[in-house]
């Protein structure tokens, strides 16, 4: 996570661009960009697991959707609930779920970890899909937006799309900074060491299981925060939000965007989203274009879109660490046998 100045420069320009965007945008793109930024937070949270801890979760959408359902449950039909109340409740609920799922899941490694996270996500998916009281397969409305203020004094009006846009932008920046600081702190160094070589990290005396669990809970909670924002801005949540397609989509954002960079996954969410937006209008064969694009990036942009940005703006150190990472990956084959990395 040692960004070269030019990349930081690129990120600052991007944020500045997003900050002035509402002045040039129509209503649609305002809300669409809000959605893309939410997906960016979601993807960034998964990057913490895939790109830094080496845990490939295929059930990340469970936390995204769960937060939305929790918000729907705590929001009565005809009354707004304070953000100070609903946000902690939702995030607390998601964190608890992530703790339980993570506690079971971090015992496995590699492909088995992928599958066990999928299994838990599928169980949650079916729970909501078949729960008629929560709208069953059709999903459920969140009737009123959370109230941000004290008493009668409203600070932020979440019913206003522009306000929601800036609220989400601020959240995106905050999440990025939070993760950046965390990854520079000792905790972040340890989880990156786990990704590079869990054996050695354990040999150094770290309880790697516990570190992985904490990373899992943080990532899950942040995915829940993204889900909360999505539910607030669209007012609807459905079992589809927890579906493995959604887990796969966010994983695609992370890998295409460039894992282990934090900003790469955000770029992934934006570029795929905008590509879809443009291509969808030209042809009904969007999936064909998407498929070709995915294969193109995989074959020709080895470090994802962030690698391209790095090449254009950065060079040197950022890429060097990436180089090392790829080399290290031989010891950490996701699809291969979980070898001795497990405990016991």
């Amino acid at each position, binding site marked *: 996570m040692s960004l070269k100045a030019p990349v930081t420069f690129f990120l600052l320009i991007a944020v500045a661009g997003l900050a002035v965007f509402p002045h040039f945008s129509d209503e649609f793109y305002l809300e669409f960009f809000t959605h893309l930024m939410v997906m960016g937070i979601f993807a960034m949270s998964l990057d913490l697991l895939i790109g830094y801890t080496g845990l490939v979760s295929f059930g990340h959408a469970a936390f995204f959707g769960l937060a939305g359902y929790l918000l729907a449950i705590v929001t009565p039909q005809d009354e707004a609930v304070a953000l100070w109340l609903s946000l902690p409740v939702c995030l607390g609920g998601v964190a608890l779920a992530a703790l339980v799922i993570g506690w079971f899941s971090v015992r496995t490694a590699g492909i088995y970890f992928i599958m066990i996270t999928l299994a838990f996500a599928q169980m949650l998916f079916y729970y909501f899909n078949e729960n008629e009281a929560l709208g069953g397969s059709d999903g459920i409305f969140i009737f009123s937006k959370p109230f941000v203020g004290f008493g009668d004094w409203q600070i932020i009006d979440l019913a206003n799309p522009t306000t929601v846009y800036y609220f989400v932008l601020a959240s995106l920046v905050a999440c990025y900074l939070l993760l950046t600081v965390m990854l520079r702190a000792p905790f972040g160094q340890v989880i990156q060491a786990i990704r590079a070589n869990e054996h050695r990290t354990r040999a150094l005396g770290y309880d790697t299981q516990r570190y992985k669990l904490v990373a899992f809970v943080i990532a899950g909670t942040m995915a829940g925060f993204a889900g909360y924002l999505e539910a607030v801005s669209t007012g609807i949540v459905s079992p589809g939000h927890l579906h493995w397609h959604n887990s796969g989509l966010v994983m695609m954002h992370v890998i295409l965007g460039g894992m282990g960079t934090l900003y790469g996954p955000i770029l992934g969410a934006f570029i795929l989203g905008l590509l879809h937006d443009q291509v969808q209008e030209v042809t009904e064969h969007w999936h064909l274009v998407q498929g070709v694009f995915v*294969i193109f990036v995989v074959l020709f942009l080895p470090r994802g879109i962030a690698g391209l940005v790095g090449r254009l703006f950065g060079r040197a150190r950022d890429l060097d660490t990436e180089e090392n990472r790829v080399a290290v990956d031989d010891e950490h084959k996701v699809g291969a046998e979980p070898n001795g990395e497990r405990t016991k």
Partner: protein
Amino acid sequence: MDLTTFLIQTLNGVQYGFLLFLVASGLTLIFGIMGIINLAHGAFYMLGAYIVYWLMGYTDNLLIAVLVGLPIMLAVGYLIERFAISYLYDRDHLYQVLLTYGLILIFNELQKIFWGTDFYSVPVPSVLGGSVTLTETQVYPVYRLFISLICMTIAAGMYVLIGRTRLGMMIRAGASNREMAQVLGINIGRVFAIVFSLGAALAAFAGMVGAPISSVYPGMGDQILIISFVVVVIGGIGSIKGAFVGAMLIGLADTFGQVLLPDFASVVVYAVMALVLLWRPQGLFGKA
């Protein structure tokens, strides 16, 4: 549940297990030997079904359609390995996952372009069209029993191929240590290409012989994808025996789950997988 019903449901469970093994066998081959998480497995399965439907337009014989269709799918698998996957062996496995995901998108779209969005059926061959009487109300189609027979043949065939043949030896050598095998004069690139095309053909074969039962429709490949992974992972990656046991376990758990715990029918399979992985994190027959 009386004894007759119990026995019939057991038969259903075992038979479903056979179907699952048929679908999952190619996956565990590619998975275990090449370490590739092949998400396009379901797409190959779908392609097999559509190719048989297409060929049945020229010949009414399912056997001929399968015999013509299999080389096509072997070629498709071979080309995909040579022109895409082979470039990714040195990269993080997630890129292979993503590549095969891209393949799903492309194949689904090509299916739509070539065959449209209608639902088609493939007739059961008339020789196997009969049925066996189970109770006064229920009979059992012979074709389903025939598929079980095919599955056993495939299981045995794969066991022999991997464990007893020269190709199997090269495959195992390549799987356990690529560089070493290369040094010993095995053309690993060729071996992997063969394994991948075999896996693709096996998936397609499942779609082909399953087509008379499952019918042929868009999105059919996506439905079997996840359950195939569940089977392979429960059994332990790369283990043919594991895939077989995993398939039976899931077949039975699913069948009895639906009958005995109808409210939890949809989660039983995943709960079983979670429990198995908690007990043995590398699957039932996976190497620790």
